[in-house]
């Protein structure tokens, strides 16, 4: 089932598009305890709305991608939900049914690469340890158990050999993995990640995808802003199609149809998606 999120320009489903039963459909709209639940979220930087009345509730324990064209408000959605970007009045955002301030330990966020000062005098392990500062509390010192946790997180992303390296000396993919490690070390239940796959090499991409799946398998909810629809098809469970409004939510197979994507992307369907649709068409034609 595809929930429409109240968008007036919502796409309609055609009859030849099969509708699989969706056990999570209620989670998308009405679960008050959802890991992230947003009602009436609008953002306007002064030149028209970037986000316009977003209503969304994330299903629990899923690997979810946020996709949409450039400037669709994907990053703004994460940032406004976390309170970094001021939302218009009337918005209601809850995490696990509570305001963010009450459940900070359960929520972790990985920023875009561009927002980081890579010249900062910090080593790879310093950056990962910073993920624990909130849990440590004021005036408390970093202990060996924290260092062990940081090294463990670095091992998961294959960066333990680089622990002493200054962060500006890493490749783009390695930098992403270090920030993933900082996010992992927080041991949250909801992970919000802004373009963790942007500009990464093949090795980093597969490591990041593996760790995101591991988080989901361990019961966490993972929401990822993503630009590569083919990759979303390959490794994500669910998908939010966003362009100023929510155009479609549901499983990846339901949402990422050529028709949905064409409407949300203003008539342009990424070639990768068309080819995948074609490949999928062949699969369904052949007897299984």
């Amino acid at each position, binding site marked *: 089932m595809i929930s429409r999120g109240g968008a007036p320009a919502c796409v309609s489903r055609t009859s030849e598009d099969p509708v699989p039963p969706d056990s999570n459909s209620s989670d998308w709209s009405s679960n008050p305890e959802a890991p992230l639940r947003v009602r009436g979220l609008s953002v306007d930087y002064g030149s028209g709305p970037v986000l316009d009345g977003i209503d969304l509730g994330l299903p629990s324990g899923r690997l979810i991608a946020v996709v949409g064209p450039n400037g669709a408000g994907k990053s703004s959605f994460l940032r406004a939900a*976390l*309170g*970094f970007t001021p939302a218009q009045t009337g918005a209601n955002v809850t995490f696990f049914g509570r305001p963010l*301030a009450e459940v*900070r330990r359960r*929520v*972790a*966020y990985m*920023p875009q690469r561009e*927002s*980081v*000062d*890579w*010249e*900062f*005098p*910090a*080593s790879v392990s*310093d*950056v990962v340890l*910073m*993920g624990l*500062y*909130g*849990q*440590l509390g*004021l*005036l408390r010192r*970093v202990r060996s158990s924290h260092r062990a946790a940081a090294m463990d997180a670095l091992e998961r992303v*294959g960066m333990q*050999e*680089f622990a002493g390296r*200054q962060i*500006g*000396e*890493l*490749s*783009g*993919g*390695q930098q992403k993995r270090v920030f993933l490690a900082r996010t992992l070390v*927080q041991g949250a239940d909801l992970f919000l990640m802004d373009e963790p796959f942007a*500009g*990464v*090499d*093949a*090795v*980093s991409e597969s490591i990041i995808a593996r760790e995101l799946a591991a988080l989901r398998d361990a019961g966490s909810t993972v929401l990822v802003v993503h630009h590569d629809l083919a990759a979303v098809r390959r490794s994500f469970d669910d998908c939010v199609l966003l362009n100023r409004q929510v155009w479609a939510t549901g499983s990846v197979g339901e949402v990422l149809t050529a028709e949905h994507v064409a409407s949300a992307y203003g008539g342009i369907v990424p070639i990768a998606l068309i080819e995948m649709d074609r490949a999928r068409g062949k699969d369904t034609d052949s007897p299984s």
Partner: protein
Amino acid sequence: MMIGPSLETASVTLASLLPVLEFNTRVALLGAGSLGAAAGFVGTFLVLRRRALIADTLGHSTLPGVCIAFLLMTLFLGSARNLPLLLAGGTLSAGLAAWAVSAVARLPKIREDAALAIVLGAFFGLGIALLGVLQQLETGQVAGLDALIDGNVASLRAGDAEMIAWLSLGAVLVTILLFKELALLAFDAEQARLQGLPIRFLEFVQLVLTVVVTVAGLRAVGLILIIALLVIPPAAARFWSNRLPVVAALSALIGGLSGLMGAWISAQRAGLPTGPLIVLTASAVFALSLIFGTTRRRRRVERVPGVDGSEVVSG
């Protein structure tokens, strides 16, 4: 708590180490050295947070407060030779300026750099005007005020040097206590906020630390050049290490040595202003660090695919 004796002990220790120096020189070195170390340490976090220019505005904004304090003291006490009261006046007007910066920056269409420049101009302009008025007054011994503009530790009293040392020590201790919080605030303020760190409290503490160092530095470095002592030592230290604790400690060392060196040179001959000499020393250390520093600050575009041995850089 007895403050005087222990500091006197410190002065005596310094005296036994440097027996050739006269008492006045030792006092000057104590004030300038401790202030330089505090400025280098506190300045490290300001520079990393890209907030160093606030110190320029705060420094210049002390002038009207200092002038008004000078005028009031001349009128009611008959003498304006009380440094703590002058600095209290400077603190008040710097605090007012800090509030004005945040108020102006909140106005529509005004960015923070413009707000800083507007407040600096308004406060420093008022200060210069007041200074002109004071110079017209018969009673105005404005020589004492010159020392706060250019910095002059030659005639620093022992008690005043001790006060500067204690303020510097306090600023360093608070920074050490909040080291990891100030580090995360500088590196990633949003992450700090998300993790529930008390952002507003930390920002306020950092502002207070900056005001303390600025005001304590008026007599040693002067209100115009204090920004340099907050910025140059950390910039120089950055050439020697990629680790924040090392950079901060080195910056304190460079600032402290610059203070000692500048004060010592200015004590050699009458009329040599301390502030410029301290800042010139720090600039020399910066130049040497630039040439001989050990950290290679590679630019991202220079990275070669596969240079790290594990993968190929894409994009």
